[in-house]
């Protein structure tokens, strides 16, 4: 890789980034086309270790609805999304639960927790 084009997904702006290998840069890459500092971080991460926030649902017992929406509290490696989904398939939560409560701690040793996205009685 010498040069790579990508679209920043940090916010809805969708900046068109150009990533270039550069030994003079601290992290080995130079990012251009970004309109904020988060674009630099994203561009390099996307090259070195692409991560995504995961949002999904788990089963919930004794609630008005059958599914509780959950999310990772930090992005996890993109390659682990499906493995994480598999794990969530086997989780069943007992109502009531509060928004922000931890559903799975340190999921797949990523350092991220799966937390409830809403309260459910």
């Amino acid at each position: 890789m010498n040069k790579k084009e990508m679209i920043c997904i940090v916010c809805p702006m969708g900046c068109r980034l150009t990533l270039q290998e550069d030994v003079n840069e601290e992290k080995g890459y130079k990012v251009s086309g970004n309109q904020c500092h988060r674009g630099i971080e994203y561009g390099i991460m996307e090259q070195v270790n692409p991560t995504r926030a995961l949002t999904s649902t788990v089963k919930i017992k004794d609630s008005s609805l059958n599914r509780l929406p959950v999310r990772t509290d930090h992005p996890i490696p993109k390659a682990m999304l499906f493995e994480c989904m598999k794990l969530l398939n086997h989780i069943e939560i007992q109502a009531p639960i509060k928004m922000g409560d931890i559903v799975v701690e340190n999921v797949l040793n990523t350092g991220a927790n799966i937390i409830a996205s809403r309260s459910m009685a």
Partner: protein
Amino acid sequence: MLNYDIVVIGGGPAGLAAAIEAKKNGVDSILVIERDRELGGILQQCIHNGFGLHIFKEELTGPEYAQRFIEQLEDMGISYKLDTMVLDISEDKSLMVMNRTDGLLKIRGKAIILAMGCRERTRGAINIPGTRPAGVFTAGTAQRFVNMEGYMVGKKVVILGSGDIGLIMARRLTLEGAEVKAVAELMPYSGGLTRNIVQCLDDFDIPLFLSHTLIDIKGRDRVEGITIAKVDENRKPIPGTEQHYECDTLLLSVGLIPENELSKSAGIQLDSITGGPVVNEAMETSVKGIFACGNVVHVHDLVDWVTEESRRAGRNAAKFIKDELWDGGPSFRTAAEKGIRYIVPHMVRVENVEQTVDLFMRVDDVYTNVNMVVKLDGVRIRTITKKHLAPGEMESIKIPTKFLKEKSGGLLTVCLEKEGA
């Protein structure tokens, strides 16, 4: 008959923000009416993140965004009725309402805020040919089934339309184990945000076919397959470009329509382009004391802008109750010209505006390097240069009131001009 100062119809993001803001502005007698079993509206099924970047400066999921407003509403002691349907509004602002506990009852508001949102266009609305098997869903219905009720809608899926809901559902169904074979879009560009194309389609190698439409659905009891074809510049299918996909499910993400049956029964004037009420700077409709906000007025792409607009409606409804809303003074009509599809609000009474007049609009095509030009009675008063404009992204322009204050009224227009022209 129950009497309130303000009755809000709809407990989604628009209704919640409007009710809270009205209360903050000194009105205590408020009722929110919601037809679902809980508050929050469609946000409750939008479990993905990306909400709240403007309002809260953080990235929330739909349910989290909703819960912040629901908690605030409850903390403020604003009353609401769930599982309750408004059947009719008359021009004297009395509502015919029904639910299982109260039966049929009449509720009267000194002011009413319409916050009913929008609904999805269906197969019938776009006349898709083919048989009529099970397995054809609107993307939002599928979203509710999967994310709230816990039913998977299918195993092999094709999605028609590349609006944000369609893109989000492509990712969601893929994560849940379905095979999403393709997304077909009639227009030569996607109606969704670029970041959603990257993180919902590219991440999972789902192909997006631009300038394609659906020409056939096959299957008797359940969808067995669909056929798409490329379209020419008149959006007519080109013979010989057909592609057949075997699938059991078709999702439609082909647009949203403001839900205005109640507005019509109240005799409110509607805009034929937006499908929503004609409103002034206070978000007041053509019937005095009836306000409207959110997707019932025009379809927004970010909930943050719905919240902002609804706060304006709530604030002004409170002013109306306190008799502080001006109805005289200079007023300006707005009109969309070349390149602009519509402008909200349709009318501006300068006396009611604090610092800037905010105009919201959508363009009619994809443009690069153009100027958005604001004119007052044909004279240019503002020019804003834009690198990129797309119909999927709502634009806003702020006009300082100083341009309008000395005038006795007139016509405000916005058009697009090529840069340098």
